[in-house]
């Protein structure tokens, strides 16, 4: 099995595109760093920050009274007020400037870019062998079909992991160089109006990891479609569409239907259970994790079934 994975990497290593993707990630991180540096002033905090926060809280309370019928807005505002109150009470000044931590958190959306790139690899790794005809020379050799497919899947996952880790490390490196470590290592997490203190590094790693979940799911989908349809364009197209539209679509549905909670995208953001509100009332983190594994089982199960059973013509 290890040999098979190493063999997949042997082929992947010879592709210039995987290096190009890594370069894109690093360049994007540097670009966001530059933008952050230029607009740094916007983050400055006034000396009388306690009064400032209190005034902001008052504003939010008024807003809540006006929009009492909008539960999402009021919930969000209540959490902000709770954080402000906590800061005033415990004398925790908001980060006076952009630090490596806040900068890295701001880079989390770049995970989607890494996701897109890994999906391109995932969508082609099986179907590419079919369109290139090399699947024949591969499958007339002793390795069992399921092992070959598993090796390919693990290869895609390791490549994805490398890109995500690269994004994290590059963000930390650029962040430290441009913004320094900042003056506070405390992150305030708020859940249901209850505020708790947390080490910023713990928070960062969890937030980063949870944010990659929809990447893993979509990469798995692209991979499964690649094995099922044996066509790179179809698998990339379908999974990209799902990746870009799935979240929006699910939010729209969530307002009206309770069964939305069974949809994949209602479950991919585990950050909601730590701070924020679930997609649909009553969802828990355990429920979401179970749903994620069910979806993964369906994707991979179908892929393995078709790949091992079907004739290679």
């Amino acid at each position, binding site marked *: 099995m290890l*040999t*098979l994975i*190493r*063999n997949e990497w*042997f*082929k992947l290593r*010879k*592709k210039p595109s995987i290096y190009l993707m890594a370069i894109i990630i690093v360049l994007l991180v540097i670009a966001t760093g530059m933008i952050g540096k230029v607009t740094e002033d916007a983050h400055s905090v006034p000396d009388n920050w306690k009064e400032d926060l209190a005034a902001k809280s008052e504003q939010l309370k008024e807003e809540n009274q006006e929009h009492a019928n909008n539960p999402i807005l009021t919930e969000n505002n209540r959490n902000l007020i709770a954080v402000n109150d906590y800061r005033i009470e415990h004398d925790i000044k908001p980060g006076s400037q952009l630090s490596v931590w806040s900068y890295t958190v701001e880079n989390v959306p770049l995970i989607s870019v890494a996701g897109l790139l890994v999906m391109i690899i995932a969508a082609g790794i099986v179907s590419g062998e079919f369109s*290139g*005809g*090399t699947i*024949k*020379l*591969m*499958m*007339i*050799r*002793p*390795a*069992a079909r399921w092992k070959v497919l598993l090796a390919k899947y693990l290869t895609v996952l390791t490549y994805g992991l490398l890109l995500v880790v690269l994004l994290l490390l590059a963000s930390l490196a650029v962040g430290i160089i441009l913004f320094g470590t900042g003056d506070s290592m405390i992150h305030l997490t708020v859940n249901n109006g209850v505020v708790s203190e947390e080490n910023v590094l713990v928070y960062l790693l969890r937030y980063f990891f949870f944010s990659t979940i929809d990447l893993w799911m979509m990469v798995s989908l692209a991979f499964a479609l690649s094995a099922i349809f044996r066509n790179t364009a179809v698998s990339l197209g379908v999974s990209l569409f799902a990746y870009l539209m799935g979240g929006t679509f699910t939010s729209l549905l969530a307002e009206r239907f309770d069964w939305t909670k069974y949809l994949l995208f209602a479950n991919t953001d585990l950050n909601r259970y730590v701070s924020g509100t679930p997609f649909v009332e009553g969802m828990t983190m355990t429920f979401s994790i179970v749903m994620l594994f069910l979806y993964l089982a369906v994707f991979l199960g179908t892929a393995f079934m078709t790949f091992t059973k079907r*004739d*290679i*013509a």
Partner: protein
Amino acid sequence: MSLGIQLKNVTKKIGSNTIIDQLSLDIHKGEVVGLLGPNGAGKTTTIRMMVGLMKMTSGDILIDGLSVSEKRSATAQKLGAIVENPDFYSYMSGLDNLRYFAKLQDKKIGRQTIDEVVSIVGLTESIKKKVKTYSLGMKQRLGLAQSLLHRPKVLILDEPTNGLDPAGIREFREYIRRLAGEQNMTIVVSSHLLSEIELMCDRVAIIQNGRLVRTETIKETSDQENLVKPSSQVVMELADSSKAEQILQEKLPTLETQSRGQRELLIQADKETTAKVIHLLAVQDHPIYRVRDSQQSLEDRFLEITDEKGEAYADAHSQ
């Protein structure tokens, strides 16, 4: 067990279509068998089932005594094959391709073995170039190389001479003969180049509409046909064919003759009768310029056989 490959009532159905119908064929070790058949006859399907890319609907194929449907991994170790086009990773060098395929094999294949095989197929000079710069003939050579890396007992080659130049074809043919002779390798070759098959193979199996319609031993037809089949056709080139025909009809009334033009006479005769005919004409002072065996080429026989059966098949289905 002296059989290299054994096909036992192999049937392949896709939907309600029967692609291969109860195909049985025994191929001995050290034998080179040519697989012939018109387009769509089922040659490639048969080959794909032998190498385990396609599953059979019923029946079984044994490779060196092991069942492909039950022990594919074990039979794969005994097999080397080219299936249809020699497709490789074009962004990698020929050498990297071979190294990759060598690593997919269960046994360890060293660099020395790879170099050896590369020099056998005559690619040493260009092996470090990317495959996308290769010609079809070079890819074909690389295809042969990858099939030989693990020293298989059975070699299955689909259209292997496609794209090779005449010198390459001859080299290839001689190498195939040597593998069968020296290493007792069992070799199946499918090709459209009938003359090529005729030179390379011990035996041909003709497939049509998914059925085995005939196997023919090549050596037999070339060397012994005249003795085995008395009705062989002989062409004589003479001064005057009608006059010669008269002479022969007088002396040998049972002889079948047919004049073709003024100078050619066709007779149906075995070797002994041919000698008699020459003697008769010679003593009559009738000039004989040339006598030759009008041997049908494999191509003629192939077309004859497939045509016949094709019509028979069509008839059977139209009724």
